[in-house]
């Protein structure tokens, strides 16, 4: 049945390539040793519906380097871009290659919590610092806290609890909850419920790659809640907001976290006008660092920065302050850790310092989507909901 004959025609393309390939892979490792620089493995999703969030993260960090004219604490910074394709197994393979082959000194970035969970152990156990600029799952905030791990964003639960508090303050009694079915989604529901004491009418979990919400919107219409709480980052949020408006449900207040932000507003446009969100940062915050960051970011990249960009900009500033404190000595891990803990830099959010579990302690705001005079859309702070808030898991962390 298998008619493959034994005679071949061409020579062996495969066999000849063997020696050439062996040579290529281990030559690269040696180049970095001589130069005095710092290599950053920048993990940002560039494939699939969530590509826009990865682009924001990358541009935010690069903007930080621009303001530091390419140096972190005096060392020339070299970026090793890693596209995790929102697939944990791809992230693990590429991060391992960056650690072992490219010998990166720090791994920065990671938009999604499932990707962070996949690369946490390979990075931290190789003695390399992992600085998440967005994903902040509760798994690493409490008992699972790790000395080599820092996050410049927040603990996922915190932001959602802010929206829970806002819903409670607004007097909503029956709320419909809808989130994607992965760790951060489950964190969102837990965070929201921690401060919202009303009735959760229904809890719907949709696959991460869902694009068509017609079935879920029909359920919302049927159950007529006082408000909707949802957490749909990137492409998910774009489709949901448009279909939500199209289905004529805009009358039901749209309380969200990371769904209507500057990464998705260009695609949502008018559909998102007046929708609510909660965050620790918004483009219209009045402080020197933020005004300079937003102005220069829009000048160099031509779009309004979202929290993904702001938080990775802060990460660049954090690294710069820490490396300067240790005089460029990357080998001394403990000294570098202390320097990072000090967080001696001017954050775009105004006040910023690390808690015991290396998660930030910061203020949180209720925001609303508004249209700027120049026709662009952005979220704007309405009122401060929590001040210098410590995440609920910090107490459980006994970092050695």
């Amino acid at each position: 049945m298998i008619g493959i004959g034994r005679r071949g025609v061409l020579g062996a393309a495969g066999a000849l390539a063997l020696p050439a390939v062996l040579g290529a892979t281990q030559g690269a490792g040696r180049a970095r040793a001589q130069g005095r620089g710092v290599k950053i493995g920048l993990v940002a999703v560039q494939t699939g519906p969530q590509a826009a969030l990865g682009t924001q993260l990358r541009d935010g960090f690069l903007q930080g380097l621009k303001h530091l004219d390419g140096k972190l604490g005096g060392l020339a910074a070299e970026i090793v871009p890693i596209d995790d394709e929102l697939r944990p197994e791809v992230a693990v393979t590429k991060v391992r290659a960056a650690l072992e082959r490219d010998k990166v000194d720090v791994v920065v970035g990671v938009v999604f919590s499932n990707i962070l969970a996949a690369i946490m152990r390979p990075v931290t156990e190789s003695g390399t610092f992992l600085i998440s600029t967005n994903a902040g799952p509760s798994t690493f905030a409490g008992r699972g806290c790790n000395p080599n791990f820092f996050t410049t964003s927040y603990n996922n639960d915190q932001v959602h609890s802010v929206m829970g508090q806002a819903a409670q303050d607004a007097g909503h009694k029956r709320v419909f909850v809808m989130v994607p079915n992965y760790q951060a989604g489950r964190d969102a529901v837990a965070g929201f419920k921690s401060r919202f004491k009303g009735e959760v009418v229904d809890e719907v979990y949709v696959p991460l790659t869902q694009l068509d919400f017609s079935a879920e919107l029909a359920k919302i219409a049927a159950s007529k809640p006082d408000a909707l709480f949802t957490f749909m980052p990137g492409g998910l949020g774009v489709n949901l907001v448009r279909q939500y408006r199209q289905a004529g449900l805009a009358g039901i207040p749209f309380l969200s976290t990371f769904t209507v932000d500057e990464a998705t507003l260009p695609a949502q446009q008018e559909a998102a006008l007046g929708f609510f969100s909660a965050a620790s940062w918004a483009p219209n915050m009045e402080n020197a660092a933020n005004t300079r960051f937003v102005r220069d970011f829009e000048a160099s990249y031509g779009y309004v920065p979202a929290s993904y960009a702001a938080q990775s900009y802060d990460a660049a500033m954090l690294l710069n302050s820490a490396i300067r404190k240790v005089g460029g000595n990357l080998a001394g891990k403990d000294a570098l850790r202390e320097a990072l803990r000090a967080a001696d830099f001017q954050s775009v959010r105004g006040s910023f310092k690390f808690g015991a579990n290396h998660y930030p302690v910061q203020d949180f705001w209720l925001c609303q989507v508004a249209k700027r005079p120049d026709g662009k859309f952005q979220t704007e702070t309405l009122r401060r909901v929590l001040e210098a808030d410590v995440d609920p898991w910090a107490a459980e962390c006994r970092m050695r």
Partner: protein
Amino acid sequence: MSFGLLLVQGLNGLQFGVLLFLVAAGLTLVFGVMDFINLAHGVQYMLGAYLGASLASLTGSFWGGLLLALPATLASGLVLEWLVFRHLYDRDHLSQVLATFGVILFLNEAVKLAWGTAPLQMAPPELLAGGITLLPGLQYPAYRLAILAAGLATAGLLWLLVERTRVGALVRAGATNAAMVAALGVDIRRLFMLVFGFGAMLAGFAGVMAAPILSVEPGMGDGVLILAFVVIVIGGIGSVRGAFVAALLVGLVESLGRSLLPDLLRLVMAASPARQAGAAIGSMLVYAVMALILAVRPRGLFPVRG
């Protein structure tokens, strides 16, 4: 699970089934007539979506995109047939599977290079943009009904072409015994090119129609390809009628399974695991149905092969 929701999911199922049929039709004909397994058929669907989306933005209209994308996918199908596939007709199935697997790798990456990794957006035509109220308080997007109608119309046209025309007779004869057709003096090479190009165009057409509702991104063809193979095996290899019936069946099982199961499991489990298990079992249902049919009627529901 209200009746309204059932109706919505049912229509979604039929609409996905029709899309599957357009992809499966070309696949089963190529397979039936030329005994050729073409894993790269899913890529034609993807190319259709990409060409449709970019040509629509170029010409500024959905219809422009559609009308230009069809000949383009026909051309791409014929180019692939000339470059790679015609060398494979006399080879065994293992070689065909591997060579076409190589074509998938190449084209999925080439699309990434040409159009980038972020998904393209394609708006449905304005006149079909709104929703239609099927029942009081239940809106169903008009565009999806349009897909259903277009798909059924194409199926009817294809049925007429295959059952009622001379070329159709040749194709059906080829599906049962290609050697005999060649022996009767028919230029079998030209028939293969015709069947191949037509199959590619059908898949491209499905791609263009799917672009506005599904995400146009690299690798979007692979999932549809697997389901198309399930369809032609259930329907009976080489049978267009079988492909039509099986496509609607798979479409319904796929969408109803995904939506009903999570709600059924909710009675037993908590919301999040129920959703995950429901979605997984839903997507497994289709393969269970295929394995069952293969075990009972190995030649499918409407066997054609002599």
